[in-house]
């Protein structure tokens, strides 16, 4: 199972009728069991790219071949939970046939067991993100999209959530695509890193990390980060 992406261009027309190019040449493939990371500056079209990959936007030049019948799990930047449904109902909505044991395990891993009956309005952003994660994993996705799941959380919380994501990603053979603008998250979670340019976004550099996620040592992570931050991406 693999995802083939070949987006030649994508542009928007603003209210004044002026065209803006958002994406310009994004080509890659992603295999099952692989975590791809889209890394780039704010406003480079990352979220637009995800929308296209998620099948929410069909207005672009190029081709995206998703494996037929692949189930999609997605965590949007804002949690996008239904405020009028409890945490558990939000998850069961997209996965009506989930077994109770699996749901309990999922809630346990994400430390949500105590919040099952809360409404999203009663949760902090960190908790709401975790509910969104639980929802995405509940559908047993073949293709998982995570749009900045760790943004605007404090370091300790972000670190914990990152470990939880790593645990969940390792538990299932699927294609995962993570969007982030944090190099540390990218190196710790990703297998292949796609560096995007400023708008209009195109791929500047692909970094493949051969060591499996669980076996990466701190010095190795530091070494990769150091090397990547020295790449003069702005002038490529």
């Amino acid at each position, binding site marked *: 199972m693999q995802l083939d992406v070949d987006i030649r261009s994508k542009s928007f027309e603003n209210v004044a009728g002026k065209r803006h190019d958002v994406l310009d040449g994004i080509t890659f493939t992603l295999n099952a069991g692989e975590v791809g990371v889209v890394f780039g500056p704010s406003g480079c079209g990352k979220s637009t790219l995800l*929308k296209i990959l*998620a*099948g*929410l936007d069909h207005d672009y030049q190029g081709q995206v071949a998703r494996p037929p019948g692949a*189930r*999609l*799990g*997605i965590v*949007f930047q*804002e949690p*996008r939970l*239904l*405020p*009028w*449904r409890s945490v558990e109902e939000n998850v069961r*909505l*997209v996965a*009506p046939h989930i077994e109770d044991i699996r749901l309990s395990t999922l809630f346990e891993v994400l430390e949500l067991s105590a919040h099952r009956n809360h*409404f999203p*309005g*009663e949760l902090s952003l960190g908790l709401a993100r975790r509910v969104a994660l639980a*929802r995405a994993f509940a*559908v047993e996705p073949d293709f998982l999209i995570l749009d900045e799941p760790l943004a605007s959380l404090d370091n300790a919380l972000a670190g914990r959530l990152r470990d939880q994501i790593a645990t969940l990603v390792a538990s299932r053979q699927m294609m995962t695509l993570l969007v982030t603008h944090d190099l540390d998250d990218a190196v710790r979670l990703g297998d292949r890193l796609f560096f995007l340019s400023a708008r209009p976004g195109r791929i500047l550099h692909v970094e493949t990390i051969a060591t499996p996620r669980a076996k990466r040592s701190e010095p190795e992570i530091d070494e990769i980060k150091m090397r990547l931050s020295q790449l003069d991406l702005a002038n490529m």
Partner: protein
Amino acid sequence: MLRLLSFALFVATWWIASFLVGETKLPAPPAVMTAMMSEARSGALFLNLGVTLARVALAFTLAMALGSAIGYLMGRVRLANRLGDPWLILLLNLPALVVIVLAYIWAGLTEVAAIVAIAINKLPTAVVTLREGARALDPALDEMATAFALPRGRAFRHVILPQLAPYIAAAARSGLSLVWKIVLVAELLGRPNGVGFEIGVAFQLFDIPLLLAYSLSFAAVVLVIEILLVQPFETRLSRWRLRAA
């Protein structure tokens, strides 16, 4: 308790007013009560209230169902809005009396004509409110439903409908009060029974106790329906809001 007090205050004001202007113009509460009791004993009161209520229920349901569907469509589909908008403006500004009279002329003095006329009066306000609701739907949640491949029915029930609920409640609330008012006019003009008809009779006989007896019983029914049905329904719909921190 507070409601009881305010009711007592109402009766007291009425009684004092009736002393001031004289029994012939404004009968005191006991006279109206007597008229009410005699109508109740003969069964006429309940029959007429029942008939009026049935008309309200039918016209209200018809207008809400049709109005919600049209309003939702107009809010979601631009073409539908373009096509429907002139009609909507026409209906919104058409006086209730015109609709009722025309309905009676074209369809005869029938039950169907009465109910359709009442429903047509309420329809455009339901359409306008629901159109606003459909326009205010959160596209982010739509995307969520699409991304997770929620079946249409499920998405409508869990994602769309709760967002429309406050608009439906608002349309129901304003629509119900409109229907209460118009149903009496329709009955006065072309029905042989119902509260509106009885009020018309009382008016022609200048029987003020009877007139007040029917008006107040009708008002009481409206109040009971509001308190027992409409308000609990609204509270239920917004329970997730109340609990939010």
